[in-house]
């Protein structure tokens, strides 16, 4: 086995033991290799799992890698053990999170001015869920707290990096497209649902 193969297979084992997202930095330090090199190996592993169509996949969360199940196998896992899914966020929490994700770092005042309503409780709830965190203080009057999203946010919403979020202009396209689909062929949607 070449050195590269050895490292890659070691990374695989390490991810298995670690369970949680494994920081590329930590993995690179173990072999005393460049972070970029380690990152590439993880990426190669990720691609291998995908091309082989494995039931286990590797996902990246902000320069960390983690073994997880393939999303299409959801139904079978449900049949096996009906895992409890995390409670969905409320509409107001989702709106607040959207504003923070796109405008971060952002103060509570700015969020409230966009939503036109007080957001203390919602922000508190998002903090408790570790979806957002304090990232510093604004230089403005009163030095208000600035909020930003966390790694948990990236993980729970399936983004590998914060730059993965689609551009604001594209969002309306994405939404419009899905709306158009619904109008054109509602039957198609129903079929999709049954397939899940």
């Amino acid at each position: 086995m070449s050195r590269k193969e050895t490292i890659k297979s070691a990374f695989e084992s390490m991810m298995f033991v670690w369970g949680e997202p494994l920081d590329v930095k930590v993995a690179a330090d173990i072999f005393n290799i460049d972070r970029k090199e380690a990152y590439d190996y993880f990426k190669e592993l990720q691609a291998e799992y995908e091309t082989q169509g494995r039931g286990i996949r590797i996902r990246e969360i902000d320069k960390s890698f983690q073994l997880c199940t393939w999303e299409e196998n959801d139904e079978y896992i449900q049949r096996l053990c009906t895992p409890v899914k995390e409670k969905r966020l409320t509409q107001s929490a989702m709106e607040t999170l959207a504003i923070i994700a796109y405008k971060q770092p952002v103060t509570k005042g700015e969020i409230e001015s966009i939503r036109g309503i007080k957001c203390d409780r919602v922000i508190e709830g998002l903090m408790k869920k570790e979806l957002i965190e304090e990232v510093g203080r604004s230089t403005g009057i009163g030095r208000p707290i600035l909020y930003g999203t966390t790694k948990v946010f990236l993980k729970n919403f399936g983004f590998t990096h914060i730059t993965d979020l689609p551009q604001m202009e594209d969002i309306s396209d994405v939404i419009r497209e899905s709306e158009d689909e619904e109008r054109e062929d509602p039957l198609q949607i129903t079929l999709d649902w049954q397939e899940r």
Partner: protein
Amino acid sequence: MVYKVKLDVFEGPFDLLVYLIESAEMSIYDIQVAEITKQYMEYVERIQKVDTALAGEFMVLAASLIEIKSKMLLPRKSSEEGLDLLEDPRSELVQKLLEYKMYKQIAAYLEEQEERTQRIYEKPKEDLTLYTKEADVYLSLDLVPFVKAFELFLQKKKRMEEVQKRYSSIKQQQMTIESRIEQIKQLFRGRKRLKFRDLVNEDRTRQNVVLTFLSMLELIRQKAVKVNQNVNYGEITFTINEKDMVAEKGE
């Protein structure tokens, strides 16, 4: 108990306004302020009855809607070239509504993403102590420290024994007054009179004497026995009450 009913339909004043404009099929760039303000106020009045604090949050926008409405009533000055130089009083509101709508769309998109990601499962971080725990200590122990440890143990044991010689341990009370009374009643079977000495003859421990004494006090209180003591520190004699004997027989 106060029940708080939350009308979750609208997430805030802008949410309501967007809904009203869309359901009236108005262009967001050409809001008919008078009509929308009327509908908006109707809703605010309705929720005011349920939750004043929440209605308060909707009031700020209500005020600016009315302000815009009144500005719209004023005749707009046109310059000589016929160009409308005055800013449309609605434009600031339109900007805010557009921004809010944008985030509402992003929220919907995030919701979709969340739904998708919830279909992926991960293993929670396992208990790694299984791998990181130090090996059991005795395995790595030489004979010399082992012997030392044993000697230490023997010394400690010796010291403990010396201490224990001088102190007796206190035992927990094993019997209740109630059960002792039952025992005493058995002793009275077929006898009318008993001395206190006879009652504690079998077991003269301090605990038993106290327990028996307390039991007799209880029997005296119940008027089951009569008590007699001629001189201080003298013999205590108990005489069973005849009535009680009758009851005993009846049992």
